[in-house]
């Protein structure tokens, strides 16, 4: 046999291996730790390191009450894994959460801003718990490792056989395999999340609702490409239908649950202003408008929400937006409580549109209401400038 024909034989063998690589993995048990010599222990080691570093990051929301609240939900969902799962709330204005193989979870504030009740957040947490229980990260790591290892031989052998293009075809096949695998795992985690919240007494219709709100936001968005999670996740319409069907089935069996909206609003209210401010800084106003609309529909702390609605218009500054912003700020001022900054923004817009007396009044009211304002001197100088 010549070198070239041997290479072609090996090539055929490699292609066969590539298509049959699969790993049987058992669910992780409560309190279980991987054996030191395993590949899983290596992943844990790296993630433990990342966890220690991230926990001291300035981007983490450290508030003890908020963290206790989320911890309580986690433990209610899966009491047996309560000690195995840790988390940080990371200040990032996008919808996301992730689970590492060692049980370390990241929850982004963009998700917490978008969840409309405790059941929706619980569903996402349940989804992540599902990834942990099923050891999805480990399976994925092994798939990537084994595929990339098979590929390098394939490419070398293909080069030896003089059929270099075989390598790139194999690479495409392999990548498609990895993504399909990932979508299957997402479906599995979705199902687990659904079951967990239903068993914990949450309103299981909220699983479909949070997805639906996200689709609404994506369809409205100025930059839909930024919704990175849609790449590796099952076609979302399909997931909404699956979740709806499962919910209808449970309902027909007489099951029901509670959304726990009041609890959720109470826990997140103190942080909402900060999260909304970060949300608007993305400058994807069409997407943020959908988020604001859902928040306004709760009727919770409307003064603050109308203020941020005004901020959205003021920052977007398209034709007619100044007038809309002024109307939103004025609506905020009619509420029982509102951020003093509404008066400052109102003053700025009045000034810009030539209503100097109204601007002066707004600035004065701002200073009266907020004598400790860090920009007190600046606003005072505006008033003097107007006079």
């Amino acid at each position, binding site marked *: 046999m010549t070198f070239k024909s041997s290479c072609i034989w090996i090539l055929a063998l490699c292609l066969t291996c590539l298509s049959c690589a699969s790993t049987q993995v058992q669910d992780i048990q409560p309190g279980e730790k991987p054996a030191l010599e395993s590949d899983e222990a*290596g992943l844990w080691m*790296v993630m433990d390191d990342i966890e220690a570093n991230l926990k001291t990051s300035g981007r983490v929301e450290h508030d003890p009450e908020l963290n206790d609240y989320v911890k309580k939900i986690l433990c209610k969902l899966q009491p047996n894994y309560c000690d195995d799962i840790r988390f940080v709330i990371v200040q990032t204005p996008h919808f*996301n959460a992730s*689970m590492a193989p060692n049980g370390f979870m990241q929850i982004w504030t963009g998700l917490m801003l978008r969840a409309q009740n405790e059941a929706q957040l619980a569903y996402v947490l349940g989804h992540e718990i599902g990834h942990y229980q099923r050891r999805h990260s480990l399976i994925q790591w092994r798939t990537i490792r084994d595929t990339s*290892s098979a590929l*390098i031989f394939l490419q*070398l052998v293909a080069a*030896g056989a003089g059929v270099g293009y075989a390598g790139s075809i194999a690479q495409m096949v392999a990548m498609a395999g990895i993504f399909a695998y990932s979508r299957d795992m997402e479906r599995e985690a979705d199902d687990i999340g659904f079951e967990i919240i239903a068993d914990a007494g949450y309103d299981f219709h909220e699983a479909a609702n949070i997805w639906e709100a996200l689709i609404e936001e994506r369809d409205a968005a100025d930059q839909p490409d930024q919704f990175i999670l849609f790449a590796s996740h099952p076609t979302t319409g399909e997931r909404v239908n699956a979740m709806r069907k499962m919910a209808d089935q449970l309902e027909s069996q007489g099951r029901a649950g509670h959304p726990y909206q009041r609890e959720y609003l109470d826990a997140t209210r103190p942080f909402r202003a900060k999260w909304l401010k970060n949300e608007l800084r993305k400058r994807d106003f069409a997407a943020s408008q959908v988020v604001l609309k859902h928040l306004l529909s709760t009727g919770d702390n409307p003064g603050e929400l109308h203020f941020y609605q005004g901020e959205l218009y003021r920052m977007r500054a398209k034709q007619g937006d100044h007038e809309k912003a002024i109307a939103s700020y004025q609506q905020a001022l009619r509420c029982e409580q509102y951020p003093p900054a509404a008066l400052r923004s109102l003053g700025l817009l009045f000034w810009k549109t030539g209503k100097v007396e109204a601007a002066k009044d707004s600035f004065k009211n701002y200073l009266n209401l907020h004598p400790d304002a860090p920009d007190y001197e600046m606003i005072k100088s505006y008033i003097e400038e107007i006079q």
Partner: protein
Amino acid sequence: MMTASTRAHVFSIFARRIHAAFKLTALFFFLFCIGCATTNYKATPAAPNLPENARVIVMPLDVQLFELTAGGLQEPRADWTAAAETHVQTALESFLAQRKDTVVRYEPLQDNPEKARMNQQLMKLHEAVGNSIMIHTYFPGFNLPTKKDQFDWTLGGGIQRINERYGAHCALFIFIRDSYASAGRKAAMVLGALAGVSISGGFQTGFASLVDLQTGNILWFGRLFRQAGDLRTPEPAYEAVSQLLVGIPL
């Protein structure tokens, strides 16, 4: 969540992390190949001013070992890392025992979250500063114009707080990342050689800093940067530590 593209996301974390550690290796390796001979350690003029019997805190080691898979991924190995931590610690203590200085091991206060947090921040800071030194002082093309030939890097005065319980003069930080070719990688290297393609093996890279506990200034900085060495067994680990600590003013 679902998002998360958890998979993709977690893997991007892995990838980023493992990448961050090894991007440097790759860069160094490239520069190594194009050839740049420098001494392995740097020191400030203040370094020899340490007292005769200086008291040295050895900070917790930051060591991680990886297996290079056939496909070129760095697979983290917890068992090798645990062995390496023991061997490097032992080697370090016996290396320093030959000197006149007093060596104390830093014990992070786990019961004090604020102190534990600060300790973690210092380790992160040392990693960041050390990586910058690796890039900007060893390779002529990456020299910083503002530094010229000066070696004046610092972790800042905040480091004084770790000294409260020790009354030491300086602290020694050590950071090492080491990788070894798996059997599959070795096979790929052989096959690659036959096919005329060069495939790289494992790489040992790391750095150590001796830090003044008054000012936070790095008095001396040593590095490892080679396709050799093995931290998984005691003797080669001692050899690696001796290489790393060449020229340390203790």
